[in-house]
């Protein structure tokens, strides 16, 4: 029997596959399709200090092997997430990761701190890479010092392991990763979306109301693999890998590159059952390539 267990700071996963933030709401909708207990973990939609409506519509566009989104961090605010959403997910026997966003460092701290008051959340994913909001998000993730500073502040107020979610919109992902490692991050989550745009020919304007959006899906997988591989060489934090994962083979590719676990985003939209289907296939795929366990494959794509 292939062992899918993966140990990460703050949680032991029965398998390394979880839905990615923003692509799975707070789990309710997909629980209509399957039993969420099958998942390795769940990453919730971003939480901000107060409720946010997000951007105008249209908020999504399709691209070749991918999509653009500019949701704009719409969410009911951290308090309601804690009172209304976390308890629902806590009814399942699955680790919960809360995605934390903000427009100011103080907001990040406030949101992170709030999650101390629920025993059901296992870890935080610090979203310093959202390309779809005017303030906060990516502006904290583009600069190594800013990234370190948010990480440090959040670590100081939070009792939970913190995974910092990195943006691929940078010339030097390794420097950012190193910087948040030094600032005390417990793990990394990568990658968030690449900033992109689509023009609508009939309107002669950008299709998305927000003009730009975040590119996700299989199109960006090579960028994700490259960045994880590069970061793994220089940083010793565990990595939750994501970007275009659709199949169990993709999962193995991420593990080999250096991810310890993975998140599946866009593929949930194409196929609502994609997570349990991948989890079911994974033992077979690991076996085919000679692995007795998922853990064994982590980082094995590197030399020596």
């Amino acid at each position: 029997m292939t062992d899918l267990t993966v140990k990460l700071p703050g949680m032991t996963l029965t398998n390394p596959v979880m839905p990615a933030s923003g692509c799975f709401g707070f789990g309710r909708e997909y629980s209509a399709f399957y039993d969420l207990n099958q998942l390795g973990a769940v990453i919730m939609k971003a939480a901000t200090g107060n409720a946010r409506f997000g951007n105008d519509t249209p908020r999504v566009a399709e691209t070749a092997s991918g999509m653009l989104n500019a949701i704009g961090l719409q969410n009911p605010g951290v308090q309601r997430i804690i009172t209304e959403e976390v308890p629902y997910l806590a009814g399942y026997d699955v680790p919960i990761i809360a995605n934390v966003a903000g427009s100011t460092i103080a907001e990040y701290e406030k949101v992170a701190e709030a999650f101390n008051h629920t025993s059901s959340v296992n870890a935080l994913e610090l979203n310093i890479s959202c390309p779809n909001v005017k303030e906060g998000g990516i502006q904290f993730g583009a600069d190594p010092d800013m990234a370190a500073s948010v990480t440090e502040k959040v670590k100081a107020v939070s009792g939970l392991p913190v995974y910092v979610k990195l943006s691929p919109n940078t010339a030097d992902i390794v420097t950012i990763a190193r910087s948040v490692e030094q600032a005390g991050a417990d793990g990394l989550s990568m990658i968030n979306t690449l900033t992109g745009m689509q023009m609508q020919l009939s309107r002669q304007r950008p299709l998305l109301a927000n003009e730009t959006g975040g590119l996700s899906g299989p199109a960006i997988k090579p960028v994700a693999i490259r960045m994880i591989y590069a970061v793994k060489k220089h940083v010793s934090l565990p990595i939750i890998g994501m970007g275009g994962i659709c199949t169990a083979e993709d999962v193995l590719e991420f593990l080999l590159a250096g991810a310890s676990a993975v998140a599946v985003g866009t593929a949930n939209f194409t196929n609502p059952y994609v997570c349990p289907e991948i989890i079911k296939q994974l033992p077979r795929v690991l076996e085919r390539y000679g692995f007795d366990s998922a853990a064994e494959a982590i980082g094995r794509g590197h030399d020596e």
Partner: protein
Amino acid sequence: MKKRTEMTVETVQEVALDTIEMKLNHPYISTAAQPGQFLHVLAEGHTLRRPISIASIDREYGTITILFKVMGSGTKNLAAMKPGMEVNVVGPSGNGFTVQETPARTALLVGGGIGVPPLYGLAEELQRKGIGVKSILGFQSRAHVFYKEKFERIGTTYMVTDDGTLGHHGLVTDILDKAGRFDHYYSCGPIPMLKAVREQLRGHPGFLSLEERMGCGTGACLACVVRAETESGYQKICTDGPVFDADEVIL
């Protein structure tokens, strides 16, 4: 309960310019479906599914009819499907039309272009419930018209075209008063049309079916929101809609 499943193509037919009628077989979906709901259809090679309204339901034969306009590559692929092939759908999705039986005796349906299909299934349902149906249907031109006779068989039907090649020359809103008395109205079509219809019919209870670009189609991603007079300030078209009480949504 909505499911992801394969529906078998029974017939495919071009019923108007670039407009395809497709009959899909699936015992479960056809039993569960309500008029106004949609199928979230996978188009081979595409990341995002395409929402297509349920135009008609035949519970006896286990089929659903959809009608769609060939717009981009997804609907083009779909139009190329042949009888016997399978279409991967998630459905029936969303909340359909609420058919009020009492005291409603007559319903007015106002449809524009590709907003017409869901109204047909509704018309059938209303007829089954013994509710009178009047329809005002707008199309770009005569070449774009479909289902005229089918609507006429159910009730009085007024045709409107942008270019006057069939029926009234102008907009559906030009002739709303021609329809006379009715209890409820149901409308589906482009947003400017829905706005104008709602404005003119203010005071009448009504339902609007909205469209928006979707990500998940299942309520999780918040791509398809519309501002609304609800506590959260919004509704999701894919799960709270696509049909809304006309007074509830902010267009």
